[in-house]
């Protein structure tokens, strides 16, 4: 369809919203290289020098370096565990036609309707009861559970598209069930695995409230999302340091997004609405 002159207001509105999205990012990036005085005087001016002083302060005052390591550790281990649980489960559900399997699948698809935040306090109790309170270990165990519904449903959808003959052929050659999973199903649903990994990478890396409550404020254990808001109070809000810290937490996500833009967009779109 052609877009006539009457679309002018639409163009203007859409691009103003786009500006609203991009300006804060620019402001953060620019301020990360400025002092408080410069930020207040010329909030949108380009920084005059590109020193890493603010980044260094952010690193030191909030122990961000350690926090990044903690976040990376939690994210990677939780991703491994998620795949370790979801792949066999999806494999089982995709292949079997029994009533039990479809009931299990239904349990997982209903999981979308359970917002992860709902049970914050009981989860905290669980952490205390298992003796894993104030540890990263509990988050590594807990995060995959929150990701299970989405991951299983996405993987099942991909595995259903794999023809049965593939498995039969492998069986002829004497493959065990595990070998079928490993050498037939996993290689053939790599796009699904990528989707699951990308989506969960985002949620795990960005997870805030549970990390705050369960891992707590101990600088040796806390993740970067928990460390970040502390910059607000420690420094009497030095905006240069605050923005430098924020930029730092965004870097991994931004790098992944830019490298895998198409795939990431597909993953986000297909992951959001699966009920």
């Amino acid at each position, binding site marked *: 369809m052609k877009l006539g002159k009457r679309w002018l207001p639409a163009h203007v509105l859409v691009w103003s919203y786009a500006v609203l999205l991009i300006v804060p990012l620019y402001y953060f990036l620019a301020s990360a290289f400025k002092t408080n005085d410069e930020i207040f005087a010329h909030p949108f001016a380009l920084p005059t020098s590109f020193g890493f002083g603010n980044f260094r302060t952010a690193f030191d005052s909030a122990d961000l370096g350690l926090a990044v390591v903690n976040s990376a550790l939690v994210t990677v281990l939780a991703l491994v565990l998620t795949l370790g649980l979801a792949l066999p489960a999806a494999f089982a559900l995709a292949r079997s036609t029994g009533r039990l399997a479809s009931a299990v699948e239904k349990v997982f698809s209903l999981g979308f309707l359970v917002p992860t935040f709902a049970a914050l306090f009981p989860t905290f109790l669980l952490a205390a009861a298992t003796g894993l309170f104030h540890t990263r270990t509990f988050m590594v165990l807990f995060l995959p559970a929150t990701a299970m519904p989405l991951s299983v449903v996405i993987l099942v959808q991909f595995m259903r598209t794999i023809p049965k003959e593939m498995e039969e052929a492998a069986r002829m050659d004497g493959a065990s069930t595990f070998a079928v999973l490993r050498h037939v199903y996993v290689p053939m649903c790599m796009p699904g695995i990528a989707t699951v990994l990308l989506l969960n990478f985002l949620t795990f890396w960005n997870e805030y409230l549970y990390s705050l409550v369960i891992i707590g404020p101990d600088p040796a254990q806390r993740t970067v999302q928990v460390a970040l808001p502390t910059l*607000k109070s420690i420094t009497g809000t030095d905006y240069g340091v605050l923005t430098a810290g924020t930029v730092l937490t965004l870097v991994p996500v931004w790098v992944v997004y830019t490298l895998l833009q198409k795939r990431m967009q597909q993953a986000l779109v297909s992951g959001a609405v699966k009920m």
Partner: protein
Amino acid sequence: MTTLTPPPGDTTVRRPGPPSAAAVRRSPRQGGTVLAVPALVWYLVFMVGPLIAIFVVAVLHWPGMLQPVSFAGLGNVRTVLGDPVFRDAVRNTAVQLAVALPVMIVCAYMLGYYVAQKPPGHRVIRYLLFIPGLISTPAKAMVFYAALSPDGLANGALESVGLGSLTDAWLASPSTALACLIALDVWAGIGFTAVLFAARLGSVPDELGEAAQLDGAGHWRTMWLVHFPVIRDYVGVVTMLQFLWTLFGSAQHVLLLTQGGPGSSSTTLSFLVYQKAFIAADLGYSQTVGVVLFLAGLVGLLAIRRAFRQNY
């Protein structure tokens, strides 16, 4: 509800036909269902268990982690219902949902329609719309903190155009604190929701819009009277998601930006759950509000589902 945005390569969904007797004999059920057990157990222990525990703690009198626990029955319900803070929280949550949700969905739908028409620059727009979906809650909150704190961007901008009298401590003023939180929801929500709509609208056949144009319908009418009914179901699902995210997720924004204050002017239900559990240490109260929140979520979901039921 079914998936409406199939993953790539999902075009050849196999419908298993009835297996022939020979095939059944050749490949007996090759086990493997047991492989789903670990994932299921994990899910039940870490997600469903705690969810059930909410209802248990809600009937307990439990004034702090290390305090003795006693059975309270409906005592907590009475305390909660009689508490003016709870009533404020209900009101704030209702206002938040009533303003944020319609604005978000309507704007996102129109924006999604705009992007789906592939106007010049739509690729750039699409790239930008994903931004709120990528950045974490603390980072989003820091953006708003930098913009709205007393010496932040908004006040600076007002002063520089000579409207210094309009400056305010936006996040610390009873009249604007809640509005700031709603603005954050809307700012972050529109972009990502619009992308979802654009993806779905992209799969509506072009002929539909073209036919409407031939009949003399403009874009406005095509958008609302032709395309909207087609993806009505999908709009419902997205609305349900945003409803849940807003209802349950607001705790994090409140915690990071206003702490529920000043007074209780920006306390939402989900923040009240957090605050009573981890700050005020009134655990029975907290989880009673949790039950209320859960029921509100359920009722809201059913209502939205009904409102968006496909009706052609």
